[in-house]
């Protein structure tokens, strides 16, 4: 049987001014019809280049300097634009990362779907497009067809993209991080859909993702790319059971698995950072970061060797690794201190409410009618003790960012009480004294905007030292840089010269400069590469251990939250749904929303089992919040009228888990099994 896609020795360079940069070096892979091939790589790995090359849609500066790409036997390299036009849409299709920007904002969905079938009459094309929308399980296809992209939700937009891709029954389907921009619960539903559709068709699929969990669930075969090179390839099961390349080991080690906690297992991060493509290590690209590198690794580039049936690896020591003679895993981070029993209260939040006023029309303003407001945070209570990490998990619209901004003083709360060390914390920054400001700091979401581009790293770090710490010296700045594992030369660099991970480290250093007692972190690792995430998480643990700092950690990733935190709070539409010690979070009873979140996360273990708990409908508009229990419109365990009419009680059990639900805890405990079962890692 001919492979649907056959890439052989592909090498692609970019003309980057005077010096060309090689983005892909001698990469080969094959996908059979009906097979799902996972492509794993971080930024700079070349996976985007590979995708663009496979579609023959490389930008002008790119040049294929060697290799061949064959689609069902037909060579694609060298085809003209006109010839490729016949291939696109009919034989190759792409589902890209961000569906909203991939849809024309001025055309209706139906119109964009019909473009694919210009050969049919308008009526037939219309019927076909409704059929397509039904195929991707959209419940109201007529309405969606008549809508514009911005009028439908992200999940629906992605389904439309999937429909467009599968419309002509392509031989090769490329999925480029299709669920990265979606909420976990929406992602789960879309992944279900993809899984169902894959089942039925004989399409060959190239699934590109940085998320090992998704790959573990979907792929049959796996290719790992690092800094333009193919480092390992093989069947999924074998690769996950026994990876042979140190980088693959590193990737698998550095992701916290659902159910793991920092007290039980220490993440191993990969030292160093991803090399820039213009400045690659001369021999083995991974050697500078490899814990088992030997002399030859720094002298000559290893060849791709066959290590089994349909398995290949590019490493000198793969046989030793296979025979367990050598452990390529990076050393684990040191374990955190055991929590002290005296939990001095650092932060106490009581009944916090944050509202956002909607802008009023001139007419309403003249009439002085009160502005409509959106309640982003609704009567939240939580407490953080000394040296503790409190993790706040929620999807978009949960209010987690608003909560943090209210505590730090960027936003005024509408009601509620916040106490820092049992003293009332003024809600405005201007009312807080220097000491208080030094006690409470925050790391914001976007590392690219976290630093002033016109100040050097050293200058950015000097400010908090001067203002809050009362000192300012080069030694202090060096100390800070060292604490976040950055070389002291970085003090003279400007943000534009730093990578995302490095910028985030500087932001963390800045937050810790005056040795605060509590640091809020809003999605600090979400936009970073996987291998960098682990080192940041370890860094946070290390800083906490060193200074006894408490952390309020916000994320949408429940595995990361579960790993890092001592206590976890689950937020939905501004309400806390569950608060539990992190180890108890993973065992029943769960709040139905927590249950759904836990079942949505793609598990890293291909042999793991996971319940399928999915949410109905869409997130309610915050302008019109549901009555009674805010979750009742989507709850899979909806009881009845009581959920609509009455606000639920808080129920607490002996493990310290508190659940905001009408369903009695014993009933939950009985009905809910373990949502997931993963094998512990070695």
């Amino acid at each position, binding site marked *: 049987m001919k492979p649907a896609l056959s890439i052989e020795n592909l090498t692609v360079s*970019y003309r980057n001014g005077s010096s060309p940069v090689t*983005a892909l070096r001698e990469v080969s892979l094959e996908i059979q019809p009906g097979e799902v091939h996972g492509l794993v790589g971080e930024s700079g790995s070349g996976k985007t*280049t590979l995708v663009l090359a496979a579609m023959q849609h490389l930008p002008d500066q790119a040049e294929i300097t060697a290799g061949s790409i064959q689609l069902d036997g037909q060579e694609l390299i060298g085809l003209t634009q006109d010839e490729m036009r016949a291939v696109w849409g009919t034989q190759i299709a792409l589902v890209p990362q961000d569906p909203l920007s991939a849809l024309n904002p001025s055309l209706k969905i139906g119109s964009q779907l019909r473009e694919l079938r210009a050969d049919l009459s308008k009526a037939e094309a219309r019927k076909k497009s409704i059929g397509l929308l039904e195929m991707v399980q959209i419940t109201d296809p007529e309405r969606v067809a008549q809508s514009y992209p911005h009028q439908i939700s992200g999940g629906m937009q992605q389904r439309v993209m999937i429909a467009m891709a599968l419309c002509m029954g392509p031989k090769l389907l490329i999925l480029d991080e299709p669920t990265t921009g979606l909420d976990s619960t929406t992602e789960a539903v879309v992944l279900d859909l993809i899984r169902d559709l894959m089942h039925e068709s004989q399409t060959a699929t190239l699934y590109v993702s940085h998320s090992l969990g998704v790959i573990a669930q979907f792929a049959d075969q796996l290719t790992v790319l690092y800094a333009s090179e193919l480092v390992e390839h093989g069947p999924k099961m074998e690769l996950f059971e026994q990876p042979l390349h140190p980088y693959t080991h590193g990737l698998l080690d550095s992701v916290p698995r659902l159910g793991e906690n920092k007290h039980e297992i220490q993440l191993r991060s990969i030292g160093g950072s991803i090399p820039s493509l213009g400045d690659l290590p001369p021999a083995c690209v991974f050697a500078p970061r490899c814990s088992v590198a030997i002399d030859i690794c720094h002298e000559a580039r290893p060849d791709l060797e066959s290590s089994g049936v349909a398995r290949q690896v590019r490493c000198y020591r793969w046989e030793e690794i296979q025979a367990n003679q050598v452990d390529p895993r990076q050393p684990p981070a040191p374990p955190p201190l055991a929590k002290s029993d005296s939990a001095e209260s650092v932060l106490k939040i009581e009944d916090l409410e944050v509202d956002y006023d909607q802008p009023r029309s001139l007419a309403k303003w003249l009439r002085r009618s009160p502005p409509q407001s959106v309640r982003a945070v609704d009567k939240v209570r939580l407490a953080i003790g000394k040296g503790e990490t409190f993790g706040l998990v929620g999807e978009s619209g949960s209010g987690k960012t608003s909560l943090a901004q209210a505590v730090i003083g960027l936003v005024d709360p509408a009601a509620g009480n916040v106490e820092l060390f049992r003293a009332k914390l003024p809600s405005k920054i201007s009312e807080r004294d220097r000491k208080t400001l030094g006690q409470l700091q925050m790391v*914001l979401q976007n590392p690219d*905007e976290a630093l002033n*581009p016109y100040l050097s790293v050293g200058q950015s770090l000097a400010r908090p030292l001067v203002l809050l710490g009362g000192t300012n010296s080069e030694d202090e700045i060096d100390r800070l840089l060292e604490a976040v594992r950055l070389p002291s030369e970085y003090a003279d660099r400007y943000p*534009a010269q730093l*990578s995302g991970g490095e910028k985030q480290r500087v*932001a963390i250093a*800045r937050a810790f400069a005056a040795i605060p007692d509590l640091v809020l972190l809003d999605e600090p690792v979400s936009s970073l590469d996987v291998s960098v995430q682990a080192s940041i998480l370890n860094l946070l643990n290390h800083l906490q251990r060193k200074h006894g700092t408490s952390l309020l950690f916000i994320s949408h990733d429940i595995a990361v939250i579960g790993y890092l935190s001592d206590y976890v709070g689950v937020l939905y539409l501004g309400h806390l749904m569950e608060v539990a010690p992190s180890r108890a979070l993973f065992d029943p009873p769960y709040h139905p929303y927590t249950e759904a979140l836990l079942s949505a996360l793609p598990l890293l273990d291909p042999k793991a089992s996971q319940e399928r708990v999915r949410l109905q409908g869409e997130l309610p508009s915050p302008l019109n919040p549901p009555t009674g229990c805010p979750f009742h419109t989507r709850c899979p365990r909806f009881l009845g009228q009581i959920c609509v009419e009455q606000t639920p009680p808080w129920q607490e059990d002996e493990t310290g888990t508190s659940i905001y639900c009408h369903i009695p805890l014993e009933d939950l405990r009985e009905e809910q099994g373990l949502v997931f079962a993963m094998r512990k890692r070695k």
Partner: protein
Amino acid sequence: MAVEATTAGATPVRGWRPLTVLTSLYRRPASAAGTTIVLVFLLMALIGPVVAPYGVNEQIASEARQSPSPDHWFGTDHLGRDVFSRVLYGAREILVVAGLGTLIAVVVGSAIGLLSGYRGGTFDEALMRIFDSLLAIPALLLALLLLGLVGPARNAVMVVIVIVYTPIVARVARSAVLSAKSKGFVQAARMRGESQSWILFREILPSAFPALTVESALRFSYAIFLIAALGFLGIGVQPPNPNWGLMVAEARAHVFQTPWALWMPALAISVLVIGVNLTADGLRRILRAPGE
């Protein structure tokens, strides 16, 4: 971008010291040409009146209507005045008025825009509405209204430039502030209790700097344009002012006899404005944060 690379190992570069800006401008042919033109005219403005062979209104009747010659490089006009000298004097005239006017407009406009944008609220909204109304009056019309009834007065033209261009500079400054205000590093500054003036001047202003610089260059070009047009229309200036536009208007009646008296000042205006525009375009491309 398909290729994402880290920048480990890059050396620090300061992106916007004046000398660096100048050398960067000279890297591309278009902006190099523009910058050279501007520098030449600046030189003319500086030393023109000193090196000019004749006086600004020196009328030598016997040498009237002469075509360009070694004695009179640009010829003489119908009154016997040396066109080259008048063009030189005119350079200082137009550059001083346009330059000072633009400078004041930029300083005042930036200050207003920065403060208003930073403050926000109803004050900001109201102020912007007023400025929008000023902007609803086309520049030349506004200038005519202001000037036409005052009569020719040298400083009046400069004041008019300030009034006409301050609103748009304020808008540009304000939008730069608004976009910077929401960025993480500004919020980080607020969180550590930085004073308002620190946040405005050390955190926000540098981000506004590139946009404001380019806008200043553009305003300068429009100011020159405007002053020349006013001169041509005879509003706000009167003979024997060496305003190039006025020179063109005066020479129109005698264009068959002394065409050079019309085309030389016209050329001067055109070349200068093109030069400033090319420079402004070049600045727009090169002004970035350090290290980029």
